[in-house]
């Protein structure tokens, strides 16, 4: 079965139909998605800005203890609400370039955050590598947000 057929099947599912046909469900899930985005932005920026020397003077490993909890919580809410939004209109998403740009940026952002940024910050590493990884992490997440909004226009 092709990816397009899968998208058609998901669109026809009961959950997809329920979200699509309700007046309030889509906007409510969308708003929750945005609130979690704000939280994710705050958590990543409070760490990133300090690493780049433009934020807090407290060691980043200390800031990380609070920030990574909000980050993980935000990622969880974003993925759940994002999947729900996607289930309601997968055929439209399949054909939108912005959606695929978002998915690729998201994959990069998640991999860089969990396999490079977090381990480096946790052990309080410093230097050019951390700064490079930090810039990449910030840019990747900002791309995810921007491409996400763009889905509505393309």
């Amino acid at each position, binding site marked *: 079965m092709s990816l397009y057929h899968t998208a058609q099947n998901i669109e026809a599912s009961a959950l997809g139909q329920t979200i699509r046909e309700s*007046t309030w469900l889509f*906007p409510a899930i*969308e*708003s929750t998605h*945005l*609130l979690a*985005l*704000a*939280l*994710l*932005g*705050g*958590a*990543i*920026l*409070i760490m990133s*800005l*300090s690493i780049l020397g*433009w*934020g*807090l*003077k*407290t060691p980043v490993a*200390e*800031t990380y203890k*609070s*920030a990574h*909890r*909000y980050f993980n919580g935000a990622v969880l809410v974003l993925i759940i609400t994002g999947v729900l939004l996607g289930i309601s209109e997968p055929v439209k998403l399949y054909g939108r370039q912005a959606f695929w740009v978002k998915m690729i940026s998201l994959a990069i952002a998640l991999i860089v955050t969990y396999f490079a940024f977090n381990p480096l910050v946790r052990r309080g590493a410093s230097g050019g590598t951390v700064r490079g990884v930090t810039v990449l992490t910030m840019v990747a*997440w*900002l791309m995810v*947000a*921007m*491409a*996400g*909004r*763009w889905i*509505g*226009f*393309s």
Partner: protein
Amino acid sequence: MLDDLVTKLADTPWSIALHESLYMYAITESTHVMSIMLFVGTIAMVDLRLLGISYTKVPVSQMLSGILPWTIAGFVLLAVTGAMLFLAIPIRTYHSIWFRLKILMILIAAINIAVFTFKVERDKAAWDLGPVPRKSKICAVISLSAWACVIVFGRLIAYNWFDCDSITSPTMAELTGCPLDPG
């Protein structure tokens, strides 16, 4: 008076250009959403510190001096892109109940910031690393709630449930400044 102003705005070449442009509107809207991460994200982190539940090892004074400049930068980006979005669709936005509620929430948040700046944080040296006082927690809760509402109401402006052509109750006509349709 405001009615005349938004009507005039809608007729300006800038408004028409923004409204009709293929990319400018999308770029502005996407930048607006991205800037939420910078503005609401950073202010939320400061609020969580002021609540005393996170970043407790970071002095309050450092949180304010290190993070708030970024919050202000985020606000400037949001205000500029927000003004452009308003300029692109002035009349409909002006009558939107969600836009009106959003502005109300921004005003509440602004008053809260003024109270925090001129009253609450003045003796912060006394609680820079110790337990935060109740007044600080109250300001933080108001800030978090108000900005969350601003995000939600802002998103809802896109929906046409209460546009002028679908208003039938006198109360809603009053609140949105729309003419009441007798039909």
